[in-house]
């Protein structure tokens, strides 16, 4: 009798299902009967290590470019200018800072929240925190600028650095003039070096890499 069997099966399974949904309907009045929360009023706390937003403590950053190199989507932009020794304070874990960070931008619109940049940081200054409320109405606002220099200051720093370089070069030239002719070759090299500040940044980076790693 599959005809009546079908009917009875339909009735019994429908009844089972309706019993379950009614149980949920009834339990909705109970305190743990409802799973969702009314969000702006009640929020579920995020775990401590939730990856939401990148942050850089600029006062600890040494501008080593490791984070920028680790980023799969290249969303960290760094520009540095060499600083004279002693002008910048040390980082909180005792590393020397030798570079003015004229630019440290993170494009959160590009960021893929993988947190790969936070692992190689030698001073643990770039972190990913659980602040998820960074909604912006315009895309350009998602470019977070961490550098604490204003554009005028950046300009000033760059000019000062240029002056300093010229000065150093001039000093060197003066020294070189006083020195023997054999040093003439080295002198031209220094000049070439002084003309391209980026190259110096690279050498600085190499130095930073040679230091013993504090993490991992």
């Amino acid at each position, binding site marked *: 009798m599959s005809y009546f069997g079908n009917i009875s099966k339909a009735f019994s399974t429908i009844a089972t299902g*309706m019993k379950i*949904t009614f149980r949920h*309907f009834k339990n*909705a009045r109970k305190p743990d*009967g409802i799973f969702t929360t009314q969000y702006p009023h009640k929020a579920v706390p995020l775990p401590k290590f939730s990856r939401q937003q990148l942050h850089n403590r600029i006062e600890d950053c040494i501008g080593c470019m490791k984070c920028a190199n680790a980023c799969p989507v290249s969303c960290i932009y760094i520009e540095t200018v060499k600083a004279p020794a002693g002008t910048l304070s040390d980082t909180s874990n005792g590393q020397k800072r030798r570079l003015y960070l004229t630019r440290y931008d993170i494009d959160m619109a590009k960021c893929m929240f993988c947190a790969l940049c936070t692992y190689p940081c030698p001073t643990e200054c770039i972190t990913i925190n659980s602040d998820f409320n960074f909604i912006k109405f315009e895309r350009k606002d998602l470019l977070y600028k961490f550098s604490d220099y204003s554009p005028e200051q950046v300009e000033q720093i760059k000019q000062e650095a240029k002056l300093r370089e010229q000065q150093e070069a001039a000093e060197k030239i003066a020294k070189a003039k006083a020195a023997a002719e054999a040093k003439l070759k080295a002198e031209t090299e220094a000049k070439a070096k002084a003309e391209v500040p980026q190259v110096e940044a690279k050498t600085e980076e190499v130095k930073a890499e040679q230091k013993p790693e504090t993490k991992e």
Partner: protein
Amino acid sequence: MDNILVWTMISILVMVGLVSVVGIISIYLERKVSAFMQDRLGPMEVGFGSLANAIIGKKTFKEGRIGLAQSLADGLKLLQKEDIVPKGADVFLFKLAPMIVFGGTFAAFAALPLAEYFVPADINIGLFYILAISSFGVTGILMAGWASNNKWGLLGALRSTAQMVSYEIPIGVSLISIVMICGTLSLKEMVLAQSGWFWNWHLFGAISHNGAIGIVLLPVMFINFLIYFTCSLAETNRAPFDIPEAESELVAGYHTEYTGMRFAIFFLAEYGAIFVGNAIAVTLFLGGWNSGIPMLDEANIPGIAPLIFITKVFVLIFVVMWVRWTLPRLRVDQLMNLCWKYLIPFTLFTFFYVTIYKVFLT
């Protein structure tokens, strides 16, 4: 005479409001019921206060609201939406279709007996009128699907037509049994026949007509009621028979291309149709405005009769929603299968049973 005229006028006005109010309340209920069944909260933020504030441009968000004005706010939002007519659409039919669907539902409301003196159009063929006018809506649905020049819409409309035409048959046959017992097509008289204790309701047989022997009709009346209820689900395109607008198959079926207020009208009409379908079930099987306890009815508390009627209807509407949020959807051929192989034979069986009862036992 004057008294009746005044009551009729009032009841017509009430009915006009009732259609939209019923729609709005049902939509809110649907959202809350579905939310609770799925362990969710449902609409919470928009209370009447915050809606009023939003209209005058103030933002207020407070905890502890239960979102009573949500469907009203949705309606206001839909009113402001752009009215889009697709490029290849038959503009006249496209615009006419929601009106016809809504008109069909609204016209059916006219004959609903909310109370003894609360029948907007007390016609002696009330049941026949409602059955006829509520199937008028299918024309509108077919129009909507065809005119919107959308293949999903057309498929939905054709499915809808096939479904409605088929399910008219078991509905008609199952209701004929009641008509045979009562000997009338007037809804008001049918309700009056069920007054008194709740066992007088037709769901429990024909006790009010033939005394205790009417109890032999109890099983067939139960079957009739179940069949009618199932068919009314199908007539109003509700799950598990919502194949004309099955959103996982046909996107949205016949109202795929409708936006803004036209869509809202389809929506209201759908909930209006559910109300009508269940109101007939209440009228015919569950005693209409009778509370089932004679003392309560005789107390003559003003306004209690319509309240009882509407409460009963909303209990049935809750069941409709309960079914929807529990069951999956049938396939087209299975839907037809169910109608022609299961429902129609059973209604025919009950019809013959009632005939034999009518001939030999009364």
